[in-house]
């Protein structure tokens, strides 16, 4: 670049955003498209401000204070909180029992026939079938499983544990499969090529390379399971959710507020533990 070309008159910078017209168009188009959504969901925020509703909400929120802090209630909350954690933990443990065999069955890396090019037809369809099973397990929401199991085993934690076990079994199985297939597979392949069995190749090749990631995902899912076990309480699976539902139905604002605070603290604690664990795992 010579000095003269630098002196050439630069075009004046545009005074306003040169793309303002398209931006305006797309914004208004989006607003027009939003209209049917707002109609379908009866999205009328001013309903919240109608005097009747406002009075009820104000009364309910006003009753949040003072918090319910008598000893008997606190003991109940502590018991139900433990129950919530226990449902989540037991559910995740059973979910592991569902996910691990299904992952072993569905992992493509552990295929011996795939070592020589294409996977044979029978193992391919077996793996595909297991995959579909996992997809079905995880796409039915745990609340629906819980509704089904409440019909079969009656109200109580069993329904919640089973619901978490099935949904989370599906989720864990699918993601485990993805983790195992996305990692470095050379060690496993070498083991298989040299005559190791599938289980040996898994235990000495695939598992050590991916253990940290697998554990960290499991811990994260445990944290999610605590949240869902509260939700499951609303359909009668016991725990904090059920108490919350009861207190809400009786408009006991103080009890609701206490339980919400306990719940926020519980989730924060699980969050912290899970973050710490995942960091420790590296």
């Amino acid at each position, binding site marked *: 670049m010579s000095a003269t070309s630098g002196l050439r008159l630069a075009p004046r910078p545009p005074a306003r955003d040169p793309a303002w017209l398209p931006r305006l168009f797309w914004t208004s188009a989006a607003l027009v498209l*939003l209209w*049917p*959504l*707002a109609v*379908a*969901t*009866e*999205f*009328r925020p001013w*309903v*919240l401000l109608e005097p009747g*509703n406002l009075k*009820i*909400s104000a009364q*309910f929120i006003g009753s949040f204070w003072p918090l319910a802090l008598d000893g008997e209630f606190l003991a109940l909350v502590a018991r139900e909180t*433990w*129950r919530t*954690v*226990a*449902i989540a*933990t*037991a559910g995740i*443990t059973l979910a592991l029992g569902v996910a691990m065999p299904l992952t072993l069955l569905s992992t493509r890396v552990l295929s011996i026939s795939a070592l020589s090019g294409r996977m044979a037809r029978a193992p391919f369809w077996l793996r595909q079938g297991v995959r579909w099973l996992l997809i*079905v397990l995880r*796409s*039915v*929401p745990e*609340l*629906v499983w819980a*509704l*089904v199991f409440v*019909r*079969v*085993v*009656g109200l*109580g*934690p*069993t329904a919640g*544990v*089973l619901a978490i076990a099935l949904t989370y079994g599906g989720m864990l199985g699918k993601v485990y499969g993805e983790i195992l297939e996305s990692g470095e597979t050379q060690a496993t392949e070498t083991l298989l090529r040299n005559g190791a069995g599938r289980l040996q190749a898994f235990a000495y090749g695939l598992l050590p390379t991916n253990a940290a990631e697998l554990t960290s995902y499991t811990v994260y899912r445990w944290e999610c399971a605590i*949240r*869902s076990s*509260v*939700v499951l309480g*609303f*359909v009668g699976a016991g725990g904090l*959710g059920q108490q*919350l*539902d009861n207190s*809400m139905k009786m408009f006991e604002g103080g009890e*609701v507020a206490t339980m*919400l605070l306990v*719940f*926020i603290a519980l*989730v*924060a604690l699980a*969050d912290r533990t899970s973050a710490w664990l995942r960091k*420790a795992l590296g």
Partner: protein
Amino acid sequence: MNKPSAANPPYKLPPPLFDARCKACWFSAALALLVVASFWSLDLQWAQFLSLDAARSMGRFLGEFFPPDLSPTFVAKVTVGAWETLAMSLLGTLVAAAAGLALALPASRLHAADAAWGRAPTRLLLNALRSIPELVWAALLLIAAGLGPFAGTLALALHTTGVLGRLFAESLENAPAGPGDALRAQGVGPLRVFLYATLPQVLPQLLSYTLYRWENNIRAAAVLGVVGAGGLGQLLAFHMGLFQMGKTATILGAMLAMVALVDGFSYGARRWMTR
């Protein structure tokens, strides 16, 4: 951490199985204790669940799902419910994305000299919003907003605001500082720095987070109705309560189809955006 070395140098014996200084041992012991205590304290009715009786009632229950009710009037009703659910999840996610972005700005330190007074309190608010599940929000909001999809939409929006706000704040903080610094050095105000330097850099990531949450929200919206917040869930709770299993099967099928559809769409869109 000490300097890197082989996990188990050849001149050493393998470590003893349990050692009072070994953190992992204590941790595994605590984990085993937690699991055992959970199972022990829950009085799970395995006997009842694994009995022949339960298996039979489960089989009968599943058998009643067939044939699904496919009469035109009912299918029309389910379609309306599915559209309502879809609209709830879409609108809830959009509102949450807007609110999340609005809260992510005070919740992040936008440049080195930013005092970011609001950072800690806003993050606390976002965490509180996030840690209460959609269903609990819906149950709370029913009191203020009445039965129907509006309460569900608000519930989705509140929970998702917490989630997205936190994710957005993290991506805003991690955005490369160069373009923003260049504009700021020219004396451009904070709003325009955000609009023309920070936002364009993080927009694909924000959109991808939003789409991901939409996938989650369609699942949540499908079941929110169980507490009375509209959509497919309300139909499901109603017909399941009446033991009309054929109709329940149709609703479940619609739920699965819708979730699969949204998953596929969102996966495609995210692939297309990050390409």
